[in-house]
């Protein structure tokens, strides 16, 4: 051990980062070397006083007053996050297990059908039976609970999406009558549906969440177990593992709505929106 070794090791030594053998070597050298003894003494004193001075600060009056206020502020922010559905995102596997465990067998069959359709001559044609890819993808995206990339009014979201998605992304529930059960716009993000770019828009309806995918549907044929007609437009509806999904076209734009609302409530909201 030399003086330059001690020079290099003095901080790890004082920070308690050396193993026992290294400590012994440093201490053995320091005992017999006045220069290094001074160095270690200086660094020790410096550190003690630095800690004492900097730790004094939290006792300063403004910080004592700020602490409960900060705690309240943080708790309020957590409440708001919970209300807006921006709380902890459950891990994908856990969420899947929670919702899909009873339907795993059915899903396996559905997956086989999806593979069949996507690898066959009609690849890209969105069709099928219980395993319609659009329905599954809309539910999967809804469950992921990803944070919005943009927040604001309908117009702000529309202009943010311009140039990012090839079609105009209009939040669909602009004019729905404002009741307590009316959809409240949370925000939006860029996403994709069946490998196609899409705008993903998040709403909060009472205590339920709703995700709307807006995409270019050209060349796709929608299909789902139920077919409803609202204001002359065909809406395909599927209910799966507690979620409801609606697929429809409006002025050449495709919409996939996934929510934990029941079918009747979702259709009422769509009716109000499409009639406007």
């Amino acid at each position, binding site marked *: 051990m030399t003086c330059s070794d001690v020079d290099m090791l003095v901080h790890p030594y004082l920070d308690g980062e050396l193993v026992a053998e290294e400590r012994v070597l440093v201490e053995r050298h320091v005992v017999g070397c006045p220069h290094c003894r001074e160095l270690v003494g200086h660094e020790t*004193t410096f550190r003690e006083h630095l800690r004492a001075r900097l730790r004094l600060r939290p006792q300063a009056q403004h910080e004592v007053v700020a602490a409960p206020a900060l705690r309240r502020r*943080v708790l309020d922010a957590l409440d708001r996050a919970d209300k807006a559905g921006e709380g902890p995102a459950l891990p994908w596997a856990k969420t899947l297990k929670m919702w899909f465990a009873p339907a795993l067998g059915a899903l396996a069959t559905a997956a086989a059908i999806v593979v069949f359709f996507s690898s066959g001559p009609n690849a890209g044609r969105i069709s099928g039976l219980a395993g319609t890819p659009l329905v599954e993808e809309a539910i999967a995206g809804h469950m992921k609970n990803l944070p919005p990339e943009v927040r604001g009014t309908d117009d702000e979201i529309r202009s943010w999406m311009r140039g990012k998605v090839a079609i105009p992304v209009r939040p669909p529930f602009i004019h729905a009558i404002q009741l307590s059960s009316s959809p409240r716009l949370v925000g939006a993000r860029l996403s994709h549906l069946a490998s196609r770019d899409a705008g993903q828009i998040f709403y909060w309806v009472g205590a339920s969440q709703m995700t709307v995918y807006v995409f270019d549907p050209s060349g796709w044929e929608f299909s789902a177990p139920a077919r409803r007609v609202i204001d002359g437009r065909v809406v395909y509806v599927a209910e799966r593992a507690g979620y409801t999904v609606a697929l429809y076209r409006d002025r050449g734009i495709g919409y996939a709505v996934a929510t934990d609302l029941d079918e009747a409530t979702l259709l009422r909201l769509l009716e109000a929106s499409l009639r406007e």
Partner: protein
Amino acid sequence: MLGRLSSNRKLRKDFEREALPHLGALHGTALRLTRNERDAEDLVQDAILRAYRYFTKFEPGTNCKAWLFKILTNTFITRYHGRKRDLELALAVAEEAETNDILSHEAQLSARDPEGAVASRLLSDDVVRALESLPAEFRLVVLLCDIEEFSYKEIAEIMDCPVGTVMSRLFRARRLLQRALHDYAVEQGIIKPAINLDDYRRRQKP
């Protein structure tokens, strides 16, 4: 649905139990990083919300404080990303100061007061000011090591860099801090300047 709601409520409770005891420490570090109360509170709130959002990724039983500090650090860097030029400039100044520091090492040794405790004779405000004069990365490493007493390995994880980088940053940061404190002490007449031309000339007079 009920299962999901009760699971969310439990997560919120667990989060409050794990994270809120560290609010004071996070706030202290945020205050030194941002250098003002308003930004510090915004930074803590942003970091806590981000931590809450990703709370399911936190492994219970592991070091929650280190996890929260990592999020705080990342949030700080993201927020100050737009001011990268300022940071680069500060780092360049720090490099220069470091070179001077090495050149004047002997001079500094001779200027030490007998106790080697400049910090003990300065007021807390001076020490805080000296700390806040350091570039953000150096400030952070001192706060994490000397105030929060994280290990080098934990600091490496928090700052997302190798342990070797932590050690060299810490070394440089403490050097810069000692230098800044030394300058304050000289300014206030607590210690004599290392180089004093008047003294020298006086001594040389027959």
